[in-house]
């Protein structure tokens, strides 16, 4: 976690220093390509994880039910918070 914060902070600083150049304007493409690479890398790490592959047929459904519940529960609760506390603020 600390490593991520340091990298993000260095990026922010670097971006600040480079803001007069044309580099930041072209970085969107690099972000997209890296994000695609990350998805591929995550696929490779899931596909090479024996623990996941071996257990998936047995407990995949339980995992799906629990993860969908967790996602729906949290976004429904988050929507309530957004409507009640954030909506008018972020529209300003």
């Amino acid at each position, binding site marked *: *976690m600390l*490593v*991520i*914060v340091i990298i*993000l*902070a260095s*990026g*922010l600083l*670097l*971006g*600040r220093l*480079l*803001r007069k150049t044309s*580099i*930041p304007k072209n970085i969107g493409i690099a*972000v997209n390509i*890296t994000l*695609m*690479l*990350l*998805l*591929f*890398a*995550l*696929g*490779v*790490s*899931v*596909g*090479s994880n024996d*623990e*996941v*592959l071996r257990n998936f047929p047995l*407990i*995949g459904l*339980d*995992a*799906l*039910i*629990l*993860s*969908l*519940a*967790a*996602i729906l*529960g*949290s*976004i*429904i*609760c*988050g*929507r309530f*918070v*957004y*409507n009640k*506390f*954030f*909506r008018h*603020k*972020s529209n300003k």
Partner: protein
Amino acid sequence: MKQSLIYLLLFVVGILLAIFVVLPEFLVASSFSKWVLYLLILLIGIQLGSGKNLFKAAKAFGGKIVLVPIATIIGTFAAVSIVSIFLPHRSLTDCLSVGAGFAYYSLSSVLITEARGAELGALALIANIMREFCVLIFAPLMVKYFGKLAPINAGGATTLDVTLPVILKYSGQDFLVISAFHGMFLDMSVMLFVPLFLSL
């Protein structure tokens, strides 16, 4: 949505290649995705740092940002408790400890494997990978139907790292500070709640 399909495709191709093809060692090593992630975070930082002042956006939200991780925690535990009724072979505390992984699959699966064995540990691993993956693929739909906080709540402990890029893309760059704060808060919650539910 087209972008999401490309992500999904790349993810599936990655899985299939890992299963059926012998990949070069550096791709399979777990540090590969970590370095890609670090590069991505650096690039995003540069992109954001060159733009408008981000802390101004955060200031407008003020102390209310603490409500976002609390909503994630309450919503997750409530929903997982409800569905545990439909999983009679799993106890409530087992389900809650899996839910308390908040998509932090590496840490939660290790903690759960040590306390309850490999089967529940593998469940935590797969369920929490699915949670992270859903955010990467369905973030645009979440924003559309549940508002801009939705991918942050769904992303759990990953909103500081893996899911940060898609959150900024679909919710907007104003959500950087909320997303980062949420990720740190949930990271610590995993370390608190997983052992707590395992001890009950």
